Structures are given as C-alpha cells and as structure tokens.
C-alpha cells in the first residue's frame, strides 16, 4: 500500500468514525474514546510483536509513562496560564516523549535479549509501576495526578456533548498513531523489522543493523502506547497507578493476539473487544437471575475468563487471529469465484464448503497458508 493511499484511508476512516459518534449516545461515545485510547497501545504492540518479534508484557507501563507525562505537563501549563488547544498539544507531545524515552531504554536492553528474557524484564517493569509512583514525590503515589477539566471548545459547545468531543479527540490521536504505524510498517523500516524477526543473521549479512532496528521498533511502539496513555488521561482527567496494572498489560497482549499479530485492523478489533466484552458480559450477568454476590464475583472475572480462553484457543489453533480469519475468508471467497462452472462434481463439492456458515477458516486449526487451499474443491480418492 503506498503512502498516499494509507493517508487517504486514514482520513476516510477518521471522518467515518467521527460521523459515527453522532449516532451514539454519550456512554457509547465514552466507550469509543476508551477503545481509541487502547487502539493506540494495541496498534503499537502489534507492530512490535508481529513485525519485530519482540514480546512486551510492559505496555501498560509505557501507557502510564505517557499518562504521567501528559498529566504533569498539563498541570505545569495550567499553572503557567496556558490552556485550550496549545496545552493539549504540548501535553500530548510530552506524553509521547516520556513514553519514547522509557521505550528507548527498554529497547536498548531488549536488543540484547531474546524472547522470554525481554518478556520478564517488561513484566517486572509493570509490577514496579506502583512502587515508582509511590517513591517519586511528583507522581503522588496511589492517589495519582489529576488534571484540570478540559471541556468542549466554545464554538462546538452548542452542537455536541462532552463525551462526543472526547471521542473526537481520542479518534484523532488514534488515527495519527495508527497512520504513523502503517507508514512505518509499509516502508523500508517495516521491511527491515520483518527481516530481523525472521533471521537476524541473514539480516545482518544484508547490511541491516539488527540492534538498531529492534530499538527503533520499541521506540515507535512506545510512543504510540504513550499517546494511548495521554488519551486515557485526557478522557478520565486523572492518571494513577491503579489504571495501569499487570492485568491491563496482559489484556493488551490478548487483544493483539486475538486480533492477529502484526495486523492493525486486528489491533482495532482487539481494542474494541477490550472495551465491549466486559460490558457485554456485565449486561448478560445482570440479566440472569443470580444472587447479587455471585453477580459481583462474576463481574470482574468472567470477562477475563473469556479473554484468557480465547487467547489459548487462538494461539493453539489459529495463530492468525481474527484478522487472519478475515483474510482467509476473503481468499477463500476469491478462490471460489475462480472455480470452473459447477459441473456435477463441483456442484456437489462446493456447497459442502459453504454449508458451515463459519467456514473452515473461522475454525481453529485451519487459518494460515492452508486456508487458501481449503477453498479449492477437495477431491477424495474415491471419485474416480
């Protein structure tokens, strides 16, 4: 995909999403803003894991770095008398820089480490977030940092509600982050990342510096995670260690894997799932006639159970994730269109592939390179 097409696509998507906010009620718009914030982080993570092959369990910590960077800058600017759009832009840039610097440090360590070592280091980083927040005075421990209320700007006040405005801002930031990642993915850097992921030695022989590429991937991914933290802070008007736990880190990974590693569309699906699934499960358990104690227990844990099971099933059976399944379904449709006119054999065979509404690709175990083949008519030895 060339750069102009990516930009047009991003612009179109943003306009479409902003149009969508007019159809949603305030709570849905709030959820949309949250999903956009998570999208910044999941998109960064999917590029890091999928393209450069580095696993981070610490993206919640990078989001936290962005969130604190945003909140502290916003506070400082507020006391200096700056407000409105300049304050938001400066604070967002500060968030990106804070997360980027932390990501640079992690990336420098990560370039020397592989697989499980890096995962463990980043996991320890997330575990240490509350301790760091408690020991650095400016971060104010568990209480966190609150920022000044950022309302709808003047001319729009009559038109839209606060939640809708927040959704717009969140969507715009997410669009910038995702577009940036898409450009990186499709450009030379993305090619180098894939080369390093697949074979470090071969990449080095081809004149690529593997360490530099890995660090760069970490920084890019961290900056977008930091933007996610900034948006989350903007929407909730505060930042505290309680919002960036190990669970969030693991859930970001779940979202990325469920969506399909390396796929930005998958990252978007995953982010929406992160927001919608807990709400859906909550609504379902509220509808069932269960004692309140049981409902309370199920509330926080049942969505996690679903996420965890989904993760296991997908990794074990369908490494391509949802995006992989979508691609496979498309390939299958195309393959079916290419089939010759249905003769007696084909007529009998094609419907058997279509009988199953989910199709073979949606089932675990058949996604990947084999999925294209599964669309072709399968000839059993008995049909002489």
């Amino acid at each position, binding site marked *: 995909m060339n750069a102009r097409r990516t930009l047009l696509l991003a612009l179109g998507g943003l306009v479409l999403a902003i149009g969508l906010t007019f159809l949603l009620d305030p709570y849905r718009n709030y959820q949309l803003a949250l999903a956009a914030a998570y999208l910044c982080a999941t998109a960064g993570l999917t590029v890091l*894991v999928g393209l450069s*092959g580095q*696993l981070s*369990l610490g993206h919640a910590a990078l989001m936290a770095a962005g969130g604190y960077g945003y909140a502290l800058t916003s506070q400082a600017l507020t006391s200096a008398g700056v407000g409105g759009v300049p304050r938001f832009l400066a604070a967002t840039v500060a968030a990106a820089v804070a997360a980027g610097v932390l990501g640079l440090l992690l990336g420098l*360590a990560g370039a*020397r*480490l*592989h*697989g*499980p*070592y890096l*995962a*463990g*280091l980043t*996991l*320890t*980083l997330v*575990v*240490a977030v*509350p*301790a*760091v927040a*408690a*020991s650095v005075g400016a971060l104010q421990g568990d209480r966190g940092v609150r920022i000044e209320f950022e309302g709808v700007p003047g001319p729009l006040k009559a038109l839209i509600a606060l939640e809708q405005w927040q959704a717009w801002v969140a969507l715009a930031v997410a669009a910038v982050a995702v577009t940036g990642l898409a450009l990186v993915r499709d450009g030379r850097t993305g090619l180098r990342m894939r080369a390093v992921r697949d074979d*470090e*030695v071969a990449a*080095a022989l081809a004149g690529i510096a593997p360490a530099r590429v890995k660090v760069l991937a970490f920084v890019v991914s961290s900056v977008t995670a930091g933007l996610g933290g900034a948006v989350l802070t903007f929407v909730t008007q505060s930042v505290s260690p309680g919002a960036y736990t*190990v669970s969030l880190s*693991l859930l970001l*990974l*779940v979202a990325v*894997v469920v969506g399909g590693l390396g796929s930005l569309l998958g990252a978007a699906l995953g982010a929406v799932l992160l927001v919608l699934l807990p709400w859906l499960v909550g609504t379902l358990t509220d509808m069932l006639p269960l004692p309140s104690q049981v409902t309370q*227990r*199920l509330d*926080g*844990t*049942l969505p*996690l*159970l679903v*996420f*965890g*099971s989904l*993760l*296991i099933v997908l*990794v*074990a*059976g369908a*490494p391509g994730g949802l995006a992989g399944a979508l691609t496979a379904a498309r390939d299958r449709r195309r393959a079916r269109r290419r089939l010759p006119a249905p003769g007696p054999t084909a007529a009998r065979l094609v419907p058997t592939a279509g009988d199953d509404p989910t199709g073979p690709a949606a089932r675990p175990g058949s996604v990947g390179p084999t999925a294209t083949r599964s669309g072709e008519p399968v000839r059993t030895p008995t049909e002489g």
Partner: protein
Amino acid sequence: MDRFVFLLGTGLARGTLFALFALALVLIWRATRIVNFAAGAMAIVGVYVGVAVTGLTGSYWWGLVATVLAGGVVGLVVERGVLRFASARSPLSGVILAIGLVIVLQSLLGIAFGQQHEPVPAPFSDRPLRVGGVPVLSPYDVFVVVVALGLMAALRLLFVRTTLGLQLRAAAFAPEVARLLGVRVARMRTVGWVLAAAAASLAAMLAVPKELGLNPHAADMLFVYAFTVAVVGGLDSPGGALLAGLTVGVVMSLVTGYLGATLAPVAVLALLVVVLLVRPSGLFAQAETRRA
C-alpha cells in the same frame, strides 16, 4: 547490628523460597525451552487445594502433602492439555499460551473463591528466636529453609543419581538422540512439568503465611521475584538459581528493612536490568554457542 542480622536471616529464609520457585522455572526451561509464565497461577491452585485439605482434616501436614500432589496434577494437566500446543517454531507462542493460562486460572479462582485475602496461619511460631540476645530467625523460617533446601537436595539426587534423572536430562539436552536411544521424550517432558509444578506449589504454600494471605494473585510477586532469580542465575543452572535466590532474598530483605517495602520491586527491577545488561544470559549460564 541486631537489625542487620535479623534482616539477613529473614532474607536468607525468603531467598531459599525464591530459589525453590526459581528451580521450578529452571526445570521447565531446561526441559522445554519455555519460561513458564503461568507458574505463579498454577502454584496458587495447589495452595487453594492444600488450604482446603488443612481445613477439612485439621492437619497442616495433610494440607502440605495435598498441595504438592495438587501442584503435580496441575502441571500434568497444563502440559498435556495446553502447552503441548505451543509451536516449536515461534518462541513467543509458549509465553503467550502461559499468559492465557494465568488469566484463565486466576479468573476461575476468583469466580470460585472471590478476591479477598484469606489469612493462612503459619504452623509454627512466627516470633524470632534469639541467639545470644540477637533475634535471628523464627521457627517457621527454619522450617521453610529446611523443607526448601531438603527438596532441592532431593531433586538434585533424582537428577544426578537415578535412571529417571538421566533420562530427564537426556531428553532435555538432546531430544533427538535421546529418542533414538529409547527415551520417551514426551513423557519425560511431562514428568519435568509435574516435578516443577509440584515444587512451585510447595514454595507458594510455604510463602503464603508470610504474605498478606491467600487470594488468586498471591503468588504473582513470588513469580516475578523467582523469575528475576532464575534470570540472574542463568535460567539453565539449578546451582545458579540457589545462589541467586539467596542473593535476591537478602537484597530484598535489606531494601525492605532499611528503605521501605514499596521500594522492593524497584530494587528487583534495577537488579534485573543491571544483570541483563552486563550478562544477557545470566551470571551462571553455560557459554552460549556462537550464532553469527
């Protein structure tokens, strides 16, 4: 000085627990080249069973036995049921599967028992014994050290002196050759997982009375510290795990005692970063073959 000796004593006691838990990670790493990120959640399942058995029988010892057995069963089920699907081509798939397991196990425990901290009393007194007027270790600490060191010694004997141990080592180091020589490699892997999960469950059971109490996340920190220990020790080396465990235990105890408990995770992070930057594959790992 009194304080220092006391902190050193408790640090060593905690360190043996870290070492035991880290040994569980090392066993699995050696057998399957997977860092078992689910070790904490798996161990805590065993502890829930053990505490339930203690509650039913009124005996701490039956509870301890039940913990070890339940831990082994969890290891068996996890290896046969889930980790077997880890792709050998991608080193990340094992980690991701383990993380899925963590989420599933912890949410199941949360649904079954709730998130509150259940206090688990220690079977012995927690008050420190005095040696020459200086408080050093509590009877419970002594018990922990004895059990943990005893188990580690037993595992070493198993690996070095028995045929099963030889097969386990052969299957881990050269699976292809071992298979040709008649070692059931897949079965050895399962045995490795069972042993490791049982050891981790025991470590968690011993650690729980010293923590806030039992809840689905009670072993999370233990896992993080044990991972640090295993990495510092070099993931491949049981002896390294013991040494690194004692070191990390003492460092944590001193940091907690002199600088405050909140700083302990930061200290562990700092230690991990320094060790990984200086020696990316740990202090005691065997030299890696040249790759490029």
